[in-house]
């Protein structure tokens, strides 16, 4: 695979943190409330610089904790502002209760998550623990595979969250250090082009003294489940609009965005499914394995929530064995998080691939092409034997 200059924009070199901050600046955000945590600190510092240098007309609120960060964002979003925050790992865990409130009150907050492992032991490197921890709360979730995607997805996230057919907050995940701190080449749009794609926020039911409403009342047994059901149906119903906006951006920039990405999967017997930056390593290895005659392909998800069930069902048709890679672990579960999502989505199909789960990369442990080949060979073995003897394996661990 050779690197290509893709689509609309000016070629620059930035690390993931800077690219996200740049996108937020171009989005003309109104309020930023964030607490620094490795590996997201540069994002927050960049935004403080933009504001203090007069390049971004926003309120930068240096909150005293992540819990206050998201609480402040909820208030700001309800007041009608375009809001951004960012965190990772322990910070996400600290703001956890507010995640549900932010989604239930239909705020339009955009959050960048510099994916980092949960303690213990304290580790500042990449796992997807924090991304997965948020998955039930009702936020739209994207995974960026490279710095270009991080930049593009932040812009799309603002547009999607604030859309009147959506109105849910969203998270853009980018791998800690691997993307946040790595310098990559990307195309950034001109300010006017961003303004064209992303007009200022037109809030729904904002706080208005002339139209006083009560936000966040108490529900007894007689209303709670109806409120939740409404939120559930609306979240599901937002899917087509999300896809529509991804398509619109794809046309606008010439860079393709869709919920599910596949590579060499059309005639594949073996599939490897993965989220985040390691998809690149998998594709690189798949090219080499293809040269050796293996019919193997890759599935990666750009949209993780709402989970693209139908798209996944479509792309895995004909695949005999699917290895699902998780950069996290769920103690005592039948499989790690993405594995559970996929196996549930595919369970009722008459014809579906055999599945097994691969735990990799925790705490920043590198995923190498050798690991990927090992996974592919194992999948071949499963295909030959016609059964999955071990549903979960770990790669890259000193046994």
């Amino acid at each position: 695979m050779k690197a290509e200059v893709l689509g609309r924009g000016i070629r620059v070199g930035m690390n993931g943190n800077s690219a996200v901050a740049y996108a937020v600046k171009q989005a003309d955000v109104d309020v930023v409330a964030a607490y620094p945590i490795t590996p997201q600190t540069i994002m927050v510092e960049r935004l403080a610089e933009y504001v203090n240098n007069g390049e971004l007309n926003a309120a930068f609120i240096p909150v005293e904790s992540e819990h206050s960060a998201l609480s402040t964002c909820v208030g700001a979003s309800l007041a009608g502002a375009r809001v951004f925050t960012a965190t990772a790992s322990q910070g996400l865990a600290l703001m956890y209760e507010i995640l549900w409130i932010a989604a239930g009150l239909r705020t339009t907050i955009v959050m960048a998550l510099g994916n980092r492992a949960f303690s213990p032991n304290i580790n500042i490197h990449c796992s997807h623990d924090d991304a997965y921890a948020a998955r039930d709360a009702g936020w739209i979730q994207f995974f960026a595979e490279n710095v270009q995607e991080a930049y593009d997805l932040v812009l799309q996230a603002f547009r999607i969250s604030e859309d009147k057919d959506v109105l849910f907050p969203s998270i853009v995940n980018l791998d800690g250090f691997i993307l946040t701190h790595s310098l990559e080449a990307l195309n950034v749009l001109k300010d006017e082009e961003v303004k064209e794609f992303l007009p200022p926020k037109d809030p729904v039911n904002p706080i208005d003294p002339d139209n006083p409403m009560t936000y966040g009342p108490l529900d007894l047994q007689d209303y709670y489940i109806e409120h939740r059901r409404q939120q559930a149906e609306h979240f599901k119903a937002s899917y087509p609009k999300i896809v529509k906006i991804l398509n619109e951006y794809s046309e606008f920039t010439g860079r393709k965005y869709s919920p599910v990405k596949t590579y060499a999967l059309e005639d594949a017997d073996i599939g490897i499914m993965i989220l985040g930056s390691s998809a690149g390593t998998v594709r690189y290895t798949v090219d080499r394995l293809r040269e050796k005659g293996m019919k193997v392909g890759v599935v990666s998800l750009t949209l993780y929530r709402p989970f693209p069930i139908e798209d996944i069902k479509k792309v895995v048709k004909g695949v005999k064995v699917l290895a699902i890679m998780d950069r996290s672990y769920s103690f005592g579960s039948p499989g790690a998080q993405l594995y559970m999502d996929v196996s549930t989505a595919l369970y009722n199909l008459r014809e579906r691939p055999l599945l097994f789960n691969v735990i990799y990369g925790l705490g920043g442990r590198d995923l190498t092409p050798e690991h990927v080949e090992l996974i592919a060979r194992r999948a071949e073995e499963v295909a030959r034997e016609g059964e999955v003897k071990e549903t979960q394996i770990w790669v890259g661990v000193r046994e």
Partner: protein
Amino acid sequence: MAKWRSWKELPIANILPTPGSSAEYKTGSWRALKPILYKDKCIRCLLCWVSCPEPAIDRLEDDYVEIDYDYCKGCGICANVCPVKAIEMVMEE
């Protein structure tokens, strides 16, 4: 008042777009004791009006007051603060 039944009818975002709708909930049924105001004793100091928690005491144009029995919970604060004992608490029927 809109008694939303189906989840489809509920206002979006758990919001309540009906300011002051608690007025539809008549807490007067809570009372065990009931305040009786003797207007001829009243000196219009308005201490009862300012101290009523509900509020269940309406301040009239001329600064006399009127008790709103729809909401009065019978706490007796009004009778207690009245400097001239113009309010008496009696048993509710």
